[in-house]
């Protein structure tokens, strides 16, 4: 086939191309600003990764397009919001320990509540429409409407300001470059989550079975593994990741609003399409590409920022229709 040269050199060319593209904005951006934008882009990328990885794994294993992921994301943000409200004095305390403790409490609560919602969603609704993409889209869209409406009922219909643990809103001054602490925290959270997912998928038996299921569900079943239990578990984990993403994003943007999920879900889908459905590494790379290019372009050509990711997605789809890291199907 005509693609052999590309295949042989594809890896090297891709890496070289990525480095060039990554450094290209330096032509138009002063060095210090470039560094600030890079950190912002990496942070945004990691936040998107948290949302996209759940979408990607759920699609990869279960072949389910889950439009309700955005609503689960919003629920995560709101549960965290409530915890912060309850424990206001910990949030506002001038104590790194208390700030982190309240963040962890909010995180665990958000992930548990939303994972539970995910389990209900999978068992009650999605289980009925395995294998039918159109119904999945309609039914998860319906679930989104219900979940968002519930947010309006429980927390009110208006935008709310997300109070942020004090230490998260500080910044470091490193050689005259202002580094927002929370951006670094986001990057660290993203890396940890990526590491944990990779560890579970690659090093544990359960993860190995999940990867096998991504390739061939029937075979995994015929080997004696209860694929439905696996589906529920993966769905719950994906929902938990959405909650983590929602909480982290609401701290980043300092607001929550009932419909916040749909905005980020769109980004998440772009990330997943760029990275390749079903691949966690693909989601990470795709998310970083989207985060970085969004920030560079927003600085250079502000009006083009929203469009650039769609453009990248189209280009990548033209070169590699299965995304950068296609998972074996």
């Amino acid at each position, binding site marked *: 086939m005509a693609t052999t040269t590309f295949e042989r050199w594809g890896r090297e060319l891709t890496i070289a191309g990525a480095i060039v593209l990554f450094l290209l904005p330096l032509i138009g951006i002063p060095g210090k600003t470039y560094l600030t934008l890079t950190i912002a882009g990496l942070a945004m990328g990691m936040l998107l990764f948290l949302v996209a990885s759940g979408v990607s794994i759920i699609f990869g294993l279960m072949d389910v397009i889950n439009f309700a992921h955005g609503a689960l994301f919003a629920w995560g943000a709101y549960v965290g919001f409530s915890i912060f409200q309850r424990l206001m004095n910990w949030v506002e305390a001038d104590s790194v320990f208390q700030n982190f403790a309240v963040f962890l409490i909010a995180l665990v609560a958000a992930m548990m509540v939303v994972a539970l919602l995910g389990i209900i969603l999978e068992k009650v609704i999605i289980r009925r429409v395995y294998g039918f993409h159109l119904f999945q889209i309609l039914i998860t869209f319906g679930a989104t409407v219900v979940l968002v409406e519930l947010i309006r009922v429980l927390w009110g219909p208006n935008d709310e300001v997300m109070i942020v643990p004090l230490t998260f809103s500080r910044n470091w001054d490193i050689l005259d470059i202002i580094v927002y602490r929370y951006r670094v925290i986001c990057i660290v959270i993203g890396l940890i989550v990526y590491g944990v997912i990779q560890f579970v998928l690659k090093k544990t038996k359960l993860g190995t079975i999940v990867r096998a299921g991504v390739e061939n569900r029937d075979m995994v079943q015929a080997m004696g593994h209860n*694929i439905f239990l696996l589906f529920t578990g993966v769905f719950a984990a994906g929902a938990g990741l959405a909650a983590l993403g929602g909480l982290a994003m609401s701290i980043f943007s300092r607001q929550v609003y009932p419909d916040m999920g749909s905005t980020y879900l769109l980004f998440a889908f772009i990330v997943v399409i760029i990275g390749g459905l079903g691949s966690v590494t693909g989601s990470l790379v795709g998310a970083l590409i989207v985060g970085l290019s969004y920030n560079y372009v927003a600085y250079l050509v502000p009006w083009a920022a929203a469009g650039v990711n769609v453009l990248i997605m189209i280009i990548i789809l033209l070169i590699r229709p299965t995304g950068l890291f296609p998972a074996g199907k």
Partner: protein
Amino acid sequence: MSEAILKVEGTHTFIGQHHILQGISFDAKADAVTVLIGRNGAGKSTALKTVIGLLPSSEGRIMFKGNEIQKKKPYEIARMGIGFVPEDMGIFANLTVEENMRVAMLVEDEATAQRLERTLDIFSDLGKFWKAQAGILSGGQKQMLAIARAIVNDTSLLLIDEPSKGLAPILVDALIEAINQIKEYSVVVLVEQNFYMASSVGDYFYILDDGMVVHGGLMEDLVNDEELKSKYLGISKAAE
């Protein structure tokens, strides 16, 4: 005569709107290899998938060791002790050979470790490619892996769908050798088009045609029945 470990009784299977199995019945007797033969599209693969539960039957009974299994889920049936090697082998290409085997192992105890050793004795190539991605294996090696995955558990019945497909004659001989060894500890139901292989390992046969069993009996009788062979299997004396 020995007891049948598997009894398929009047089973019907639909795929979508298509009525594929139209009331088939066959047995797998203990300590024997039963071969299902028949033209392309006769319903052989459908029969195995129905037994393991990947395709639901709409009518009829399937008994395994005296229990009805036709309403059970594939993973429940597999856990009762049935191993399945599908026609396309169902290898997890992105996983290593080792990982493929680990996914197959339902428990990782001493007994499984011994079965693994025994399995690697039969298929020594697998040991050589232990850490390699299963996707890079040759067709024959993939087939070995597929069978190895099925016999590493404590299975008492193995369903193997056309293992000789696409293999060179010398590998077919190796496969015959392997199945003769597996026969020592598991009952086998084999779908096989290669009559040389079918007659080398089979004790009993059933001929399927258009979703029905049209003949069954002892393999040694079929070997000598020129009329039956030419009618359903397209084998004539001249071609042998």
